[in-house]
Protein backbone atom coordinates (compact mmCIF):
# COMPACT_ATOMS: atom_id res chain seq x y z
CA UNK A 1 0.00 0.00 0.00
CA UNK A 2 1.72 3.11 -1.23
CA UNK A 3 -0.63 5.76 0.06
CA UNK A 4 -1.47 5.78 3.73
CA UNK A 5 -4.74 7.54 4.29
CA UNK A 6 -5.25 9.29 7.58
CA UNK A 7 -9.02 9.52 7.47
CA UNK A 8 -10.90 6.25 7.45
CA UNK A 9 -14.15 6.51 5.53
CA UNK A 10 -17.47 5.66 7.23
CA UNK A 11 -18.05 2.75 4.90
CA UNK A 12 -14.69 1.32 5.97
CA UNK A 13 -15.77 1.59 9.59
CA UNK A 14 -18.97 -0.19 8.69
CA UNK A 15 -16.92 -2.98 7.10
CA UNK A 16 -14.73 -3.25 10.21
CA UNK A 17 -17.89 -3.47 12.28
CA UNK A 18 -19.41 -6.21 10.15
CA UNK A 19 -16.21 -8.26 10.14
CA UNK A 20 -15.90 -7.90 13.92
CA UNK A 21 -19.54 -8.90 14.42
CA UNK A 22 -18.99 -11.91 12.16
CA UNK A 23 -15.95 -12.83 14.25
CA UNK A 24 -18.07 -12.72 17.40
CA UNK A 25 -20.63 -15.02 15.74
CA UNK A 26 -17.84 -17.41 14.73
CA UNK A 27 -16.56 -17.60 18.29
CA UNK A 28 -19.93 -17.62 20.07
CA UNK A 29 -20.56 -21.39 19.81
CA UNK A 30 -17.16 -22.05 21.42
CA UNK A 31 -17.96 -19.54 24.12
CA UNK A 32 -21.26 -21.22 24.96
CA UNK A 33 -19.62 -24.64 24.86
CA UNK A 34 -17.10 -23.60 27.52
CA UNK A 35 -19.68 -21.70 29.57
CA UNK A 36 -22.19 -24.55 29.52
CA UNK A 37 -19.44 -26.96 30.53
CA UNK A 38 -19.28 -25.15 33.85
CA UNK A 39 -23.03 -25.11 34.56
CA UNK A 40 -25.54 -27.67 35.78
CA UNK A 41 -28.39 -28.74 33.57
CA UNK A 42 -30.91 -26.65 35.49
CA UNK A 43 -28.79 -23.57 35.01
CA UNK A 44 -28.39 -24.21 31.29
CA UNK A 45 -32.11 -24.85 30.87
CA UNK A 46 -33.19 -21.51 32.24
CA UNK A 47 -34.21 -18.25 30.63
CA UNK A 48 -31.96 -16.49 29.92
CA UNK A 49 -29.21 -19.12 29.58
CA UNK A 50 -25.93 -18.47 31.40
CA UNK A 51 -23.47 -16.24 29.58
CA UNK A 52 -20.62 -16.42 32.05
CA UNK A 53 -18.71 -19.29 33.68
CA UNK A 54 -20.23 -21.21 36.57
CA UNK A 55 -18.70 -23.61 39.05
CA UNK A 56 -20.10 -26.99 38.02
CA UNK A 57 -17.33 -28.15 35.69
CA UNK A 58 -16.16 -31.00 37.91
CA UNK A 59 -19.75 -32.10 38.52
CA UNK A 60 -20.26 -32.20 34.77
CA UNK A 61 -17.10 -34.26 34.31
CA UNK A 62 -18.32 -36.64 37.02
CA UNK A 63 -21.65 -36.96 35.24
CA UNK A 64 -19.81 -37.51 31.97
CA UNK A 65 -17.79 -40.37 33.48
CA UNK A 66 -20.96 -41.83 34.94
CA UNK A 67 -22.58 -41.90 31.49
CA UNK A 68 -19.38 -42.86 29.67
CA UNK A 69 -17.36 -45.04 32.03
CA UNK A 70 -14.56 -45.37 29.47
CA UNK A 71 -14.22 -41.68 28.64
CA UNK A 72 -10.57 -41.37 29.71
CA UNK A 73 -9.74 -44.53 27.84
CA UNK A 74 -11.60 -43.16 24.82
CA UNK A 75 -9.54 -40.02 25.06
CA UNK A 76 -6.32 -42.03 25.24
CA UNK A 77 -7.36 -44.20 22.32
CA UNK A 78 -8.20 -41.13 20.23
CA UNK A 79 -4.77 -39.76 20.99
CA UNK A 80 -3.05 -43.05 20.24
CA UNK A 81 -4.79 -43.44 16.89
CA UNK A 82 -4.27 -39.83 15.82
CA UNK A 83 -0.64 -39.94 16.90
CA UNK A 84 0.10 -43.23 15.11
CA UNK A 85 -1.58 -42.08 11.91
CA UNK A 86 0.41 -38.86 12.05
CA UNK A 87 3.79 -40.51 12.55
CA UNK A 88 3.16 -43.05 9.80
CA UNK A 89 1.98 -40.37 7.40
CA UNK A 90 4.98 -38.17 8.09
CA UNK A 91 7.30 -41.03 7.28
CA UNK A 92 5.61 -42.62 4.29
CA UNK A 93 4.38 -39.41 2.66
CA UNK A 94 7.73 -37.68 2.85
CA UNK A 95 9.46 -40.81 1.58
CA UNK A 96 7.13 -41.02 -1.41
CA UNK A 97 7.23 -37.26 -1.91
CA UNK A 98 11.03 -37.45 -1.93
CA UNK A 99 10.96 -40.17 -4.58
CA UNK A 100 8.60 -38.17 -6.79
CA UNK A 101 10.56 -34.94 -6.36
CA UNK A 102 14.13 -36.19 -6.62
CA UNK A 103 14.22 -39.25 -8.87
CA UNK A 104 13.60 -39.82 -12.53
CA UNK A 105 11.99 -43.16 -13.08
CA UNK A 106 9.74 -44.85 -15.55
CA UNK A 107 6.01 -44.16 -15.08
CA UNK A 108 6.76 -41.41 -12.58
CA UNK A 109 4.20 -39.00 -14.00
CA UNK A 110 1.45 -41.55 -14.45
CA UNK A 111 1.95 -43.06 -10.99
CA UNK A 112 1.73 -39.59 -9.50
CA UNK A 113 -1.41 -38.90 -11.51
CA UNK A 114 -2.95 -42.05 -10.05
CA UNK A 115 -2.25 -40.80 -6.54
CA UNK A 116 -3.80 -37.45 -7.34
CA UNK A 117 -6.85 -39.14 -8.84
CA UNK A 118 -7.48 -41.09 -5.64
CA UNK A 119 -7.93 -37.77 -3.85
CA UNK A 120 -11.03 -37.24 -5.95
CA UNK A 121 -12.72 -40.36 -4.58
CA UNK A 122 -15.28 -39.33 -1.97
CA UNK A 123 -14.85 -40.93 1.44
CA UNK A 124 -18.33 -42.42 1.70
CA UNK A 125 -17.67 -44.74 -1.23
CA UNK A 126 -15.19 -46.65 0.95
CA UNK A 127 -17.47 -46.96 3.94
CA UNK A 128 -19.22 -50.22 3.10
CA UNK A 129 -16.29 -52.09 1.48
CA UNK A 130 -13.98 -51.09 4.33
CA UNK A 131 -16.29 -52.71 6.85
CA UNK A 132 -16.45 -55.86 4.77
CA UNK A 133 -12.70 -56.08 4.41
CA UNK A 134 -12.09 -55.38 8.08
CA UNK A 135 -14.50 -58.11 9.11
CA UNK A 136 -12.91 -60.47 6.61
CA UNK A 137 -9.44 -60.01 8.11
CA UNK A 138 -10.74 -59.80 11.67
CA UNK A 139 -9.82 -56.18 12.36
CA UNK A 140 -13.27 -55.01 13.38
CA UNK A 141 -13.37 -53.17 16.68
CA UNK A 142 -9.59 -52.69 16.64
CA UNK A 143 -7.47 -49.57 16.47
CA UNK A 144 -5.29 -50.87 13.65
CA UNK A 145 -8.31 -50.83 11.33
CA UNK A 146 -8.24 -47.05 11.66
CA UNK A 147 -4.46 -46.67 11.62
CA UNK A 148 -3.16 -48.88 8.82
CA UNK A 149 -5.44 -47.84 5.92
CA UNK A 150 -4.76 -44.18 6.65
CA UNK A 151 -1.01 -44.57 7.04
CA UNK A 152 -0.07 -42.87 3.75
CA UNK A 153 -2.42 -40.22 2.42
CA UNK A 154 -2.40 -38.84 -1.12
CA UNK A 155 -2.56 -35.24 0.06
CA UNK A 156 0.54 -35.73 2.18
CA UNK A 157 2.51 -37.14 -0.75
CA UNK A 158 1.43 -34.21 -2.92
CA UNK A 159 2.37 -31.69 -0.26
CA UNK A 160 5.76 -33.23 0.50
CA UNK A 161 6.62 -33.54 -3.19
CA UNK A 162 5.90 -29.84 -3.68
CA UNK A 163 7.97 -28.89 -0.69
CA UNK A 164 10.95 -31.17 -1.26
CA UNK A 165 11.03 -30.22 -4.94
CA UNK A 166 11.41 -26.53 -4.10
CA UNK A 167 13.43 -26.73 -0.89
CA UNK A 168 16.15 -29.25 -1.78
CA UNK A 169 18.64 -28.70 -4.58
CA UNK A 170 19.25 -31.82 -6.64
CA UNK A 171 23.02 -31.22 -6.42
CA UNK A 172 22.83 -31.88 -2.70
CA UNK A 173 21.37 -35.31 -3.30
CA UNK A 174 23.94 -36.01 -6.02
CA UNK A 175 26.81 -34.98 -3.78
CA UNK A 176 25.63 -37.21 -0.96
CA UNK A 177 25.30 -40.13 -3.36
CA UNK A 178 28.84 -39.63 -4.66
CA UNK A 179 30.06 -39.54 -1.07
CA UNK A 180 28.66 -43.04 -0.67
CA UNK A 181 25.44 -42.28 1.16
CA UNK A 182 22.74 -44.89 0.60
CA UNK A 183 19.48 -43.87 -1.07
CA UNK A 184 17.55 -44.19 2.16
CA UNK A 185 20.40 -42.48 4.02
CA UNK A 186 20.08 -39.46 1.74
CA UNK A 187 16.41 -39.24 2.61
CA UNK A 188 16.84 -39.85 6.32
CA UNK A 189 19.95 -37.82 7.06
CA UNK A 190 19.84 -35.04 4.49
CA UNK A 191 16.34 -34.47 3.14
CA UNK A 192 14.23 -34.99 6.27
CA UNK A 193 16.11 -32.51 8.48
CA UNK A 194 15.69 -29.87 5.79
CA UNK A 195 11.93 -30.21 5.47
CA UNK A 196 10.89 -30.01 9.12
CA UNK A 197 8.60 -26.99 8.53
CA UNK A 198 6.58 -28.96 5.99
CA UNK A 199 6.57 -31.97 8.31
CA UNK A 200 5.13 -29.71 10.99
CA UNK A 201 2.29 -28.55 8.73
CA UNK A 202 1.51 -32.03 7.48
CA UNK A 203 1.66 -33.40 11.02
CA UNK A 204 -0.87 -30.84 12.25
CA UNK A 205 -3.23 -31.43 9.35
CA UNK A 206 -3.06 -35.20 9.74
CA UNK A 207 -3.44 -35.15 13.51
CA UNK A 208 -6.48 -32.89 13.40
CA UNK A 209 -8.11 -34.97 10.68
CA UNK A 210 -7.54 -38.22 12.54
CA UNK A 211 -8.63 -36.77 15.88
CA UNK A 212 -11.90 -35.52 14.41
CA UNK A 213 -12.57 -38.62 12.31
CA UNK A 214 -16.08 -39.83 12.99
CA UNK A 215 -17.31 -41.91 10.06
CA UNK A 216 -14.37 -44.33 10.32
CA UNK A 217 -14.74 -45.27 14.00
CA UNK A 218 -18.53 -45.21 13.61
CA UNK A 219 -18.48 -48.26 11.34
CA UNK A 220 -15.41 -49.99 12.85
CA UNK A 221 -15.77 -49.69 16.61
CA UNK A 222 -18.52 -51.63 18.33
CA UNK A 223 -17.73 -51.63 22.05
CA UNK A 224 -17.80 -48.60 24.32
CA UNK A 225 -14.26 -49.25 25.51
CA UNK A 226 -12.99 -49.03 21.91
CA UNK A 227 -14.80 -45.79 21.07
CA UNK A 228 -12.86 -42.71 20.09
CA UNK A 229 -13.91 -39.40 21.66
CA UNK A 230 -16.30 -38.26 18.90
CA UNK A 231 -18.01 -41.63 19.03
CA UNK A 232 -18.24 -41.56 22.81
CA UNK A 233 -19.73 -38.06 22.79
CA UNK A 234 -22.27 -39.14 20.26
CA UNK A 235 -23.35 -41.94 22.60
CA UNK A 236 -24.57 -39.28 25.03
CA UNK A 237 -27.33 -38.41 22.60
CA UNK A 238 -30.81 -39.77 23.07
CA UNK A 239 -30.37 -41.05 26.60
CA UNK A 240 -33.58 -39.63 28.05
CA UNK A 241 -32.96 -36.25 29.64
CA UNK A 242 -30.10 -34.83 27.58
CA UNK A 243 -27.19 -34.00 29.92
CA UNK A 244 -26.21 -30.71 28.26
CA UNK A 245 -23.65 -29.82 30.90
CA UNK A 246 -21.86 -33.15 30.55
CA UNK A 247 -22.08 -33.00 26.74
CA UNK A 248 -20.57 -29.52 26.75
CA UNK A 249 -17.82 -30.60 29.12
CA UNK A 250 -16.99 -33.59 26.92
CA UNK A 251 -17.09 -31.47 23.78
CA UNK A 252 -14.84 -28.90 25.39
CA UNK A 253 -12.34 -31.61 26.31
CA UNK A 254 -12.42 -32.92 22.72
CA UNK A 255 -11.99 -29.51 21.15
CA UNK A 256 -9.52 -27.90 23.54
CA UNK A 257 -6.35 -29.76 22.40
CA UNK A 258 -7.03 -28.70 18.83
CA UNK A 259 -7.65 -25.09 19.83
CA UNK A 260 -4.34 -25.02 21.67
CA UNK A 261 -2.55 -26.51 18.64
CA UNK A 262 -4.27 -23.97 16.44
CA UNK A 263 -3.34 -20.97 18.54
CA UNK A 264 0.28 -22.12 18.57
CA UNK A 265 0.57 -22.91 14.89
CA UNK A 266 -2.38 -21.51 12.94
CA UNK A 267 -0.15 -19.89 10.37
CA UNK A 268 1.77 -23.04 9.56
CA UNK A 269 -1.44 -25.02 9.43
CA UNK A 270 -3.16 -22.64 7.03
CA UNK A 271 -0.08 -22.41 4.83
CA UNK A 272 0.13 -26.18 4.63
CA UNK A 273 -3.53 -26.62 3.81
CA UNK A 274 -3.43 -24.08 1.01
CA UNK A 275 -0.01 -25.11 -0.33
CA UNK A 276 -1.56 -27.10 -3.14
CA UNK A 277 -4.36 -24.66 -3.85
CA UNK A 278 -2.33 -21.71 -5.10
CA UNK A 279 -0.24 -23.55 -7.64
CA UNK A 280 -3.03 -25.86 -8.70
Amino acid at each position, binding site marked *: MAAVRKRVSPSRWLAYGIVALGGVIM*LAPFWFMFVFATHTNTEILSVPPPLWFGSAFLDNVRLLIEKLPFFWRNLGLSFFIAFSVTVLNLFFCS*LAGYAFAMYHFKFRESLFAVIMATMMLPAF*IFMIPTVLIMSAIGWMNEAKALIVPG*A*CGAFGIFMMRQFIGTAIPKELVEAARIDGCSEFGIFWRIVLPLVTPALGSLGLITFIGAWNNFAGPLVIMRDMDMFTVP*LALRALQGTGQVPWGAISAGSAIA*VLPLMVLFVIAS*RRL*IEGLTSGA*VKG
Partner: protein
Amino acid sequence: MSVTSSDSPAASELAVSPPRRRRKLQAWEWAPYLFISPFFILFLVFGLFPLLFSMWLAFQTWDPSTGLQGMEWVGIENFKFVLEDDWFQKSLYNTFWIAIVSGLPQHLVAIPLAYFAHTYLRKHRNTVVGVYFLPFITSTVAIALVWNSLFSRDYGVINMALTSIGNLSIAGMHPLAWLFPTSNVDWAQPQYTKWMISSLVFWRYVGWNTVLYLSALQTIPRDLYEAATIDGATSRQQFWHITVPLLRPMMFFAVTLTIIGNLQLFEEPFIITGGTGGINQAGKTAAMHMYNTAFVDSDFGTASAVAWILFLIIGLMTWANNKFFAQKD
Protein backbone atom coordinates in the same frame (compact mmCIF):
# COMPACT_ATOMS: atom_id res chain seq x y z
CA MET B 1 13.96 -55.46 -16.24
CA SER B 2 14.82 -59.11 -15.90
CA VAL B 3 17.72 -60.29 -17.98
CA THR B 4 17.20 -63.59 -19.72
CA SER B 5 20.52 -64.93 -20.81
CA SER B 6 20.04 -68.28 -22.46
CA ASP B 7 23.64 -69.37 -22.81
CA SER B 8 26.43 -69.17 -20.33
CA PRO B 9 26.58 -65.88 -18.41
CA ALA B 10 30.29 -65.63 -19.10
CA ALA B 11 29.66 -65.50 -22.80
CA SER B 12 27.29 -62.60 -22.52
CA GLU B 13 29.65 -60.67 -20.30
CA LEU B 14 32.44 -61.09 -22.79
CA ALA B 15 30.20 -60.18 -25.68
CA VAL B 16 31.48 -57.40 -27.85
CA SER B 17 28.18 -55.55 -28.23
CA PRO B 18 28.12 -53.19 -25.24
CA PRO B 19 24.46 -51.99 -25.41
CA ARG B 20 23.23 -55.50 -24.69
CA ARG B 21 25.62 -56.02 -21.86
CA ARG B 22 24.13 -57.13 -18.59
CA ARG B 23 24.22 -54.30 -16.08
CA LYS B 24 23.72 -54.35 -12.34
CA LEU B 25 20.62 -52.38 -11.39
CA GLN B 26 21.74 -49.30 -9.48
CA ALA B 27 20.16 -48.45 -6.14
CA TRP B 28 18.90 -45.11 -7.43
CA GLU B 29 17.01 -46.96 -10.13
CA TRP B 30 14.96 -49.22 -7.94
CA ALA B 31 14.85 -47.18 -4.74
CA PRO B 32 12.10 -44.75 -5.89
CA TYR B 33 9.77 -47.65 -6.59
CA LEU B 34 10.37 -48.97 -3.11
CA PHE B 35 9.81 -45.51 -1.61
CA ILE B 36 6.44 -45.00 -3.27
CA SER B 37 5.27 -48.57 -2.74
CA PRO B 38 3.58 -48.08 0.68
CA PHE B 39 0.89 -45.89 -0.83
CA PHE B 40 0.19 -48.33 -3.63
CA ILE B 41 0.16 -51.39 -1.40
CA LEU B 42 -2.25 -49.73 1.02
CA PHE B 43 -4.38 -48.43 -1.81
CA LEU B 44 -4.60 -51.82 -3.49
CA VAL B 45 -5.62 -53.58 -0.29
CA PHE B 46 -7.80 -50.96 1.39
CA GLY B 47 -8.81 -48.85 -1.61
CA LEU B 48 -8.98 -50.45 -5.00
CA PHE B 49 -10.01 -53.93 -3.96
CA PRO B 50 -12.86 -52.73 -1.71
CA LEU B 51 -13.94 -50.33 -4.43
CA LEU B 52 -14.21 -53.07 -7.02
CA PHE B 53 -15.95 -55.28 -4.52
CA SER B 54 -18.51 -52.60 -3.77
CA MET B 55 -19.08 -52.14 -7.50
CA TRP B 56 -19.73 -55.86 -7.73
CA LEU B 57 -21.96 -55.71 -4.66
CA ALA B 58 -24.14 -53.05 -6.24
CA PHE B 59 -25.39 -55.74 -8.61
CA GLN B 60 -26.12 -58.27 -5.86
CA THR B 61 -28.70 -58.69 -3.20
CA TRP B 62 -26.95 -59.52 0.02
CA ASP B 63 -27.37 -59.46 3.77
CA PRO B 64 -23.85 -59.92 5.19
CA SER B 65 -25.12 -62.09 8.05
CA THR B 66 -25.88 -64.82 5.49
CA GLY B 67 -22.21 -65.11 4.44
CA LEU B 68 -20.77 -64.86 0.98
CA GLN B 69 -22.93 -67.66 -0.44
CA GLY B 70 -26.03 -65.63 0.43
CA MET B 71 -25.14 -63.29 -2.38
CA GLU B 72 -27.36 -63.28 -5.42
CA TRP B 73 -26.92 -61.51 -8.75
CA VAL B 74 -29.81 -59.16 -9.50
CA GLY B 75 -28.40 -57.09 -12.36
CA ILE B 76 -29.44 -53.46 -12.27
CA GLU B 77 -32.37 -54.12 -9.92
CA ASN B 78 -30.66 -52.29 -7.06
CA PHE B 79 -30.11 -49.22 -9.16
CA LYS B 80 -33.71 -49.26 -10.38
CA PHE B 81 -34.95 -49.69 -6.85
CA VAL B 82 -32.84 -46.84 -5.51
CA LEU B 83 -33.76 -44.41 -8.26
CA GLU B 84 -37.45 -45.11 -7.76
CA ASP B 85 -37.22 -45.06 -3.98
CA ASP B 86 -39.05 -42.07 -2.49
CA TRP B 87 -36.74 -41.97 0.50
CA PHE B 88 -33.66 -41.82 -1.68
CA GLN B 89 -35.17 -39.06 -3.80
CA LYS B 90 -36.03 -37.16 -0.67
CA SER B 91 -32.52 -37.59 0.71
CA LEU B 92 -31.10 -36.36 -2.58
CA TYR B 93 -33.40 -33.34 -2.47
CA ASN B 94 -32.27 -32.64 1.10
CA THR B 95 -28.64 -32.99 0.07
CA PHE B 96 -28.96 -30.44 -2.73
CA TRP B 97 -31.03 -28.12 -0.58
CA ILE B 98 -28.41 -28.08 2.16
CA ALA B 99 -25.56 -27.94 -0.35
CA ILE B 100 -26.94 -24.80 -1.95
CA VAL B 101 -28.25 -23.02 1.14
CA SER B 102 -25.02 -23.62 3.05
CA GLY B 103 -22.63 -23.50 0.09
CA LEU B 104 -23.58 -20.39 -1.83
CA PRO B 105 -23.37 -17.98 1.15
CA GLN B 106 -19.97 -19.44 2.02
CA HIS B 107 -18.51 -18.00 -1.17
CA LEU B 108 -20.57 -14.81 -1.12
CA VAL B 109 -19.16 -14.08 2.34
CA ALA B 110 -15.68 -15.52 1.88
CA ILE B 111 -14.73 -13.51 -1.21
CA PRO B 112 -15.48 -10.02 0.18
CA LEU B 113 -14.10 -11.05 3.56
CA ALA B 114 -10.84 -12.27 2.04
CA TYR B 115 -10.65 -9.09 -0.05
CA PHE B 116 -11.24 -6.96 3.02
CA ALA B 117 -8.65 -8.83 5.07
CA HIS B 118 -6.15 -8.63 2.24
CA THR B 119 -6.63 -4.95 1.48
CA TYR B 120 -7.41 -3.30 4.80
CA LEU B 121 -5.97 -5.49 7.51
CA ARG B 122 -2.28 -5.63 8.26
CA LYS B 123 -1.42 -6.27 11.85
CA HIS B 124 -4.53 -8.20 12.78
CA ARG B 125 -5.05 -10.10 9.56
CA ASN B 126 -3.89 -13.44 10.89
CA THR B 127 -5.96 -13.09 14.03
CA VAL B 128 -9.14 -12.21 12.15
CA VAL B 129 -8.66 -14.95 9.57
CA GLY B 130 -7.78 -17.38 12.36
CA VAL B 131 -11.05 -16.62 14.16
CA TYR B 132 -13.07 -17.38 11.04
CA PHE B 133 -10.98 -20.46 10.32
CA LEU B 134 -11.18 -21.97 13.80
CA PRO B 135 -14.49 -23.84 13.25
CA PHE B 136 -12.87 -25.75 10.37
CA ILE B 137 -10.46 -27.60 12.64
CA THR B 138 -12.88 -28.47 15.43
CA SER B 139 -14.54 -31.81 15.88
CA THR B 140 -17.81 -31.93 13.94
CA VAL B 141 -19.40 -34.19 16.51
CA ALA B 142 -18.54 -31.97 19.46
CA ILE B 143 -19.73 -28.83 17.77
CA ALA B 144 -22.87 -30.41 16.30
CA LEU B 145 -23.85 -31.42 19.83
CA VAL B 146 -23.31 -27.83 20.95
CA TRP B 147 -25.45 -26.76 17.99
CA ASN B 148 -28.30 -28.88 19.29
CA SER B 149 -28.18 -27.12 22.62
CA LEU B 150 -27.95 -23.67 21.02
CA PHE B 151 -30.98 -24.45 18.86
CA SER B 152 -33.09 -26.08 21.57
CA ARG B 153 -36.65 -24.82 21.49
CA ASP B 154 -37.36 -23.46 24.93
CA TYR B 155 -33.94 -22.57 26.28
CA GLY B 156 -31.75 -22.17 23.21
CA VAL B 157 -29.62 -19.11 22.73
CA ILE B 158 -30.61 -18.87 19.06
CA ASN B 159 -34.32 -18.68 19.81
CA MET B 160 -33.65 -16.19 22.53
CA ALA B 161 -31.71 -13.94 20.15
CA LEU B 162 -34.18 -14.30 17.26
CA THR B 163 -37.31 -13.64 19.32
CA SER B 164 -35.78 -10.68 21.07
CA ILE B 165 -35.14 -9.12 17.66
CA GLY B 166 -38.62 -10.14 16.46
CA ASN B 167 -40.24 -8.63 19.53
CA LEU B 168 -38.12 -5.53 19.42
CA SER B 169 -40.48 -2.69 20.11
CA ILE B 170 -39.89 0.86 18.96
CA ALA B 171 -42.66 3.23 19.99
CA GLY B 172 -45.14 0.39 20.32
CA MET B 173 -44.35 -1.00 16.87
CA HIS B 174 -42.57 -4.23 16.01
CA PRO B 175 -40.58 -3.22 12.92
CA LEU B 176 -38.80 -6.55 12.50
CA ALA B 177 -41.63 -8.94 13.35
CA TRP B 178 -42.20 -9.76 9.68
CA LEU B 179 -38.66 -11.08 9.31
CA PHE B 180 -37.85 -12.56 12.71
CA PRO B 181 -39.94 -14.98 14.78
CA THR B 182 -41.81 -13.57 17.74
CA SER B 183 -42.14 -16.90 19.53
CA ASN B 184 -39.76 -19.83 19.96
CA VAL B 185 -39.05 -21.89 16.85
CA ASP B 186 -39.03 -25.68 17.15
CA TRP B 187 -35.96 -26.39 15.03
CA ALA B 188 -36.61 -30.12 15.07
CA GLN B 189 -39.70 -29.62 12.90
CA PRO B 190 -39.21 -30.73 9.27
CA GLN B 191 -39.44 -27.25 7.79
CA TYR B 192 -36.59 -26.00 10.00
CA THR B 193 -34.18 -28.96 10.34
CA LYS B 194 -32.35 -28.21 7.10
CA TRP B 195 -31.82 -24.60 8.15
CA MET B 196 -30.21 -25.77 11.33
CA ILE B 197 -27.89 -28.17 9.49
CA SER B 198 -27.05 -25.58 6.83
CA SER B 199 -26.13 -22.98 9.44
CA LEU B 200 -23.65 -25.42 10.96
CA VAL B 201 -22.13 -26.27 7.58
CA PHE B 202 -21.86 -22.60 6.67
CA TRP B 203 -20.25 -21.76 9.99
CA ARG B 204 -17.75 -24.59 9.67
CA TYR B 205 -16.52 -23.93 6.14
CA VAL B 206 -16.77 -20.18 5.53
CA GLY B 207 -13.34 -19.67 7.07
CA TRP B 208 -11.79 -22.40 4.94
CA ASN B 209 -13.02 -20.67 1.79
CA THR B 210 -11.80 -17.33 3.09
CA VAL B 211 -8.34 -18.80 3.54
CA LEU B 212 -8.40 -20.23 0.02
CA TYR B 213 -9.41 -16.88 -1.51
CA LEU B 214 -6.92 -15.02 0.63
CA SER B 215 -4.08 -17.21 -0.57
CA ALA B 216 -5.12 -16.51 -4.17
CA LEU B 217 -5.37 -12.77 -3.53
CA GLN B 218 -1.82 -12.78 -2.26
CA THR B 219 -0.59 -13.96 -5.64
CA ILE B 220 -2.12 -10.98 -7.50
CA PRO B 221 0.68 -8.48 -8.18
CA ARG B 222 0.29 -5.18 -6.34
CA ASP B 223 1.36 -3.08 -9.33
CA LEU B 224 -1.86 -3.99 -11.13
CA TYR B 225 -3.76 -2.07 -8.51
CA GLU B 226 -1.25 0.76 -8.52
CA ALA B 227 -1.53 1.11 -12.29
CA ALA B 228 -5.32 1.11 -12.01
CA THR B 229 -5.20 3.78 -9.32
CA ILE B 230 -3.04 5.97 -11.53
CA ASP B 231 -5.53 5.48 -14.35
CA GLY B 232 -8.23 6.71 -12.01
CA ALA B 233 -10.08 3.47 -11.25
CA THR B 234 -12.08 3.52 -8.03
CA SER B 235 -11.60 0.75 -5.52
CA ARG B 236 -14.97 -0.70 -6.50
CA GLN B 237 -13.88 -0.80 -10.16
CA GLN B 238 -10.62 -2.39 -9.11
CA PHE B 239 -12.48 -5.08 -7.22
CA TRP B 240 -14.74 -5.95 -10.16
CA HIS B 241 -12.23 -5.58 -12.98
CA ILE B 242 -8.99 -6.80 -11.43
CA THR B 243 -9.71 -8.89 -8.35
CA VAL B 244 -12.73 -10.86 -9.49
CA PRO B 245 -11.33 -11.93 -12.91
CA LEU B 246 -8.01 -12.95 -11.37
CA LEU B 247 -9.78 -14.88 -8.62
CA ARG B 248 -11.64 -17.03 -11.12
CA PRO B 249 -9.27 -20.02 -11.05
CA MET B 250 -9.54 -20.09 -7.29
CA MET B 251 -13.32 -19.70 -7.45
CA PHE B 252 -13.39 -22.76 -9.66
CA PHE B 253 -11.22 -24.71 -7.26
CA ALA B 254 -13.09 -23.62 -4.13
CA VAL B 255 -16.53 -24.18 -5.65
CA THR B 256 -15.42 -27.63 -6.79
CA LEU B 257 -14.35 -28.48 -3.25
CA THR B 258 -17.66 -27.18 -1.90
CA ILE B 259 -19.66 -29.27 -4.36
CA ILE B 260 -17.70 -32.44 -3.62
CA GLY B 261 -17.85 -31.81 0.12
CA ASN B 262 -21.46 -30.72 0.42
CA LEU B 263 -22.89 -33.50 -1.70
CA GLN B 264 -21.35 -36.09 0.59
CA LEU B 265 -22.44 -34.39 3.79
CA PHE B 266 -22.76 -36.97 6.53
CA GLU B 267 -21.51 -36.05 9.98
CA GLU B 268 -23.34 -32.76 10.51
CA PRO B 269 -26.83 -34.04 9.65
CA PHE B 270 -26.10 -37.36 11.35
CA ILE B 271 -25.36 -35.77 14.73
CA ILE B 272 -27.95 -33.01 14.52
CA THR B 273 -30.74 -35.46 13.77
CA GLY B 274 -29.39 -38.08 16.18
CA GLY B 275 -28.71 -40.52 13.35
CA THR B 276 -32.39 -40.78 12.43
CA GLY B 277 -32.65 -38.13 9.73
CA GLY B 278 -35.08 -36.12 11.82
CA ILE B 279 -38.87 -35.94 11.77
CA ASN B 280 -40.11 -37.14 8.39
CA GLN B 281 -36.42 -37.59 7.41
CA ALA B 282 -36.27 -33.89 6.66
CA GLY B 283 -32.59 -33.73 7.52
CA LYS B 284 -31.42 -37.01 5.97
CA THR B 285 -28.77 -36.63 3.30
CA ALA B 286 -27.91 -39.12 0.56
CA ALA B 287 -24.75 -40.27 2.36
CA MET B 288 -26.85 -40.87 5.49
CA HIS B 289 -29.32 -42.81 3.39
CA MET B 290 -26.47 -45.02 2.22
CA TYR B 291 -25.28 -45.53 5.79
CA ASN B 292 -28.73 -46.41 7.07
CA THR B 293 -29.41 -48.79 4.18
CA ALA B 294 -26.19 -50.65 4.90
CA PHE B 295 -25.87 -50.58 8.67
CA VAL B 296 -29.46 -50.27 9.88
CA ASP B 297 -31.30 -52.23 7.20
CA SER B 298 -28.33 -54.58 6.49
CA ASP B 299 -28.95 -54.26 2.76
CA PHE B 300 -25.42 -53.97 1.45
CA GLY B 301 -26.28 -54.43 -2.22
CA THR B 302 -28.74 -51.55 -2.30
CA ALA B 303 -26.45 -49.41 -0.18
CA SER B 304 -23.61 -49.95 -2.64
CA ALA B 305 -25.90 -48.89 -5.46
CA VAL B 306 -26.74 -45.72 -3.50
CA ALA B 307 -23.02 -45.05 -3.05
CA TRP B 308 -22.28 -45.39 -6.77
CA ILE B 309 -25.27 -43.32 -7.82
CA LEU B 310 -24.19 -40.57 -5.46
CA PHE B 311 -20.64 -40.88 -6.77
CA LEU B 312 -21.89 -40.43 -10.33
CA ILE B 313 -23.96 -37.41 -9.31
CA ILE B 314 -20.94 -35.80 -7.67
CA GLY B 315 -18.89 -36.51 -10.79
CA LEU B 316 -21.62 -34.99 -12.95
CA MET B 317 -21.86 -31.84 -10.83
CA THR B 318 -18.09 -31.43 -10.82
CA TRP B 319 -18.11 -31.77 -14.58
CA ALA B 320 -20.92 -29.23 -14.95
CA ASN B 321 -19.03 -26.82 -12.71
CA ASN B 322 -15.97 -27.32 -14.90
CA LYS B 323 -18.03 -26.47 -18.00
CA PHE B 324 -19.54 -23.44 -16.30
CA PHE B 325 -16.18 -21.94 -15.39
CA ALA B 326 -14.48 -22.85 -18.65
CA GLN B 327 -17.25 -21.39 -20.80
CA LYS B 328 -16.81 -17.81 -19.65
CA ASP B 329 -13.18 -17.55 -20.63
